[in-house]
């Protein structure tokens, strides 16, 4: 299974590299481009895990539409020079890093130590081919999860209206400050 692991490590490297780019790059637009690439990497992981449909959706919706919005908004702002890209305050930052470190080390520690999760290895999963998963996915969405699906539809409608009305707001109490 060498090809498998090589692909995994390559994708992991890409994702983590570009995620760190989001975190570290002081230029928000470049950070956004980094995020796009990280998302393409995640889509690659999805393809690799034989969830092709989700990979396609990830590319089309996430990388293709959502992130374009981010970049567009950032470009509209046209921020000259990012002032204080990172939060100041020594203690606070130490606390933030500490919290992140605790979370990640705990999770990794537990993942490695746990015997339950070890059960499922890559040898276990072979049966699903990409297209069949898509059909099962559709069946599930339109039967078992149909209520959630409809609710999400309504949510999207509300979001569309809300986003338009929020971005059209003018004036207000702090208008001049």
């Amino acid at each position, binding site marked *: 299974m060498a090809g498998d692991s090589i692909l995994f490590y390559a994708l992991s490297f890409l994702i983590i590299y570009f995620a760190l780019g989001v975190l570290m790059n002081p230029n*928000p637009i470049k950070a956004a481009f980094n995020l796009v690439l990280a998302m393409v990497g995640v889509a690659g992981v999805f393809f690799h895990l034989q969830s092709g449909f989700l990979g396609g959706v990830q590319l089309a919706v996430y990388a293709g539409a959502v992130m374009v919005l981010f970049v567009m908004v950032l470009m509209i702002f046209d921020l000259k020079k990012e002032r204080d890209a990172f939060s100041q305050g020594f203690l606070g930052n130490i606390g933030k*890093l500490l919290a992140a470190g605790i979370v990640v080390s705990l999770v*990794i520690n537990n*993942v490695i130590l746990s015997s339950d999760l070890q059960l499922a290895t890559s040898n276990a999963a072979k049966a699903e081919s990409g297209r069949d998963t898509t059909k099962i996915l559709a069946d599930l969405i339109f039967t078992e999860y149909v209520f959630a699906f409809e609710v999400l539809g309504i949510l999207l409608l509300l979001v*569309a209206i809300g986003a338009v009305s929020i971005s059209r707001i003018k004036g207000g109490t702090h208008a001049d400050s």
Partner: protein
Amino acid sequence: MLTVDFVNIGLNHYLILSAIVFVIGMLTVLLRRNLIVMLMGIELMLNAVNITFVAFSHYNQLVNGQVMVFFVMTIAAAEAGVGLAICVSIFKRFKEVNISLFENLRG
């Protein structure tokens, strides 16, 4: 004694990848001061969660996890839409999206 299998890729590797990406996203939210970059950090965290869903779904041979990913993506799109709209209206008023300037609700 920890023995880590670096060659055979299994569920654990994906979980660790997801944990790392999640924490990077979390740190983006915690450390970056640009509102939009903070939103991007949230997207990163959601992506990390999606990786776990898909990995579990793949290794347990259950498609239900993928349904959740589908929903998470929808929610993320919705969240991005509203979040960006708020950013736009904030920018319209203050000509700035640096979070450290918005501390009016000090206790």
